[in-house]
């Protein structure tokens, strides 16, 4: 949090006198706490930095300025920054979700396949906090996301016992997410109405997966009448660290994703069927989702014109 860059810039000013031991024993903290004047100044700067980010109308440059002042003063006096506040690594604006911050999940770029040697495999997902002022993408570890999903699947297996039931439940959970997610997708991606199903699947693969999972997918295997195709995913942040045990071979671990797509398309009046054709966890080389358009429900009102 701003410390690295700052240490290089201002290292000679603020960090020369501080040894690691001093920091560990809290000598610096007691020094700062004893000085009421600098403490109240620190509080004041913090309030200013906060105020500037939530104020109406937003003045982003002012927020960055106060954020910088706050960080500089904090480091000069050795007061640790408030852990509940998050600042941008580059411009030091205090980041507030909903005001000047977008949060997304991103897949680490390393192209390591899931073989049996997990120990030297350091894939790691990141939560990306994008600052609206300087557009810097602050990354944080997102293993919690992957682990949480794993815990959910585990719990479902315990509760429902049958692998088939778990698949069904994951699909239903995905559906419930999809019917809400579609609105966010439409509101924030600025895509317009799709002309045909080809365009729709393309948008899902290129924009949708990028936006919510941080990976891109490709669309292949179109059938002749353009109602059935495959979405191929090479990377999937959900399956890091996962090995399917022998008694769960029928489990579609990522079945939640197929549910999300089905739910999302349902809300824009397309009835679809989404099934997994290939799964890395079952020994295939990629993930392949088959999306089949069953029916296009026209947006009409349920009355007849002449009645």
């Amino acid at each position, binding site marked *: 949090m701003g410390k690295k860059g700052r240490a290089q810039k201002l290292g000679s000013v603020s960090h020369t006198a501080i040894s690691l031991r001093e920091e560990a024993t809290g000598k610096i903290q007691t020094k700062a706490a004893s000085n009421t004047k600098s403490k109240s100044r620190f509080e004041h700067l913090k309030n200013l930095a906060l105020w500037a980010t939530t104020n*109406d*109308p*937003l003045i982003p440059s002012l927020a960055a300025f106060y954020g910088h002042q706050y960080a500089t003063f904090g480091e000069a006096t050795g007061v640790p920054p408030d852990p509940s506040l998050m600042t941008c690594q580059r411009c030091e604006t205090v980041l507030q979700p*909903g005001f000047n911050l977008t949060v997304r999940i991103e897949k680490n770029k390393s192209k390591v396949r899931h073989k049996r040697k997990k120990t030297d495999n350091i894939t790691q997902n990141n939560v990306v906090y994008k600052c609206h002022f300087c557009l810097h993408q602050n990354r944080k570890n997102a293993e919690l996301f992957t682990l949480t999903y794993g815990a959910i699947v585990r719990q479902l297996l315990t509760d429902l016992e049958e692998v088939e039931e778990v698949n069904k439940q994951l699909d239903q959970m995905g559906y419930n997410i999809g019917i*809400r997610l579609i*609105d*966010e997708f439409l*509101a924030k991606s600025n895509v317009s109405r799709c002309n045909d199903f080809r365009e729709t699947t393309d948008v899902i693969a290129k924009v949708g997966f990028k936006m919510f999972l941080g990976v891109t997918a490709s669309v292949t295997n179109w059938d002749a009448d353009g109602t059935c195709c495959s979405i191929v995913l090479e990377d999937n942040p959900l399956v890091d660290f996962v090995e399917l045990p022998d008694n769960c071979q029928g489990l579609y671990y990522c079945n939640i994703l197929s549910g999300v797509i089905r739910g999302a398309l349902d809300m*824009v009046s397309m009835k679809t069927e989404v099934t997994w054709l290939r799964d890395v966890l079952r020994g295939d080389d990629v993930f392949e989702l088959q999306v089949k358009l069953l029916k296009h429900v026209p947006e009409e*009102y349920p009355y007849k014109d002449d009645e």
Partner: protein
Amino acid sequence: MAAIYSLYIINKSGGLIYYKDYGSAGRMDTNDSLRVASLWHSMHAISQQLSPVSGCLGIELLQADTFDLHCFQSLTGTKFFVVCEPGAQHMENLLKFVYELYTDYVLKNPFYEMEMPIRCELFDINLTQAVQKDRVAFLGR
């Protein structure tokens, strides 16, 4: 600054799920607001059928002597509309922004039931900020 009289959100089956009025002009009681919402839902549907242009998506702007009504319908069928003073600017942006707030603070709230009336405090707070200071003009998107 453009004065906004009231804001409505109706679900895809025509039920009013959110109503808020600002300022004194055009204040209505609950029954009237429900009536306006369902009336607008039907008029919007009828306008789609009557339109001489093919592929019409319904009324976007209704101009009257004393007010303008701007309407935005998302592709999922939820309608957002504001009643504001005649000639108010940037209302399309405001509606888009309200849609974003709705996706963030209503749909992502796990305790919100789809298609039901919106009772989310965070949504209220953010909406008030957006409308009061007309921040939408600043956002410039």
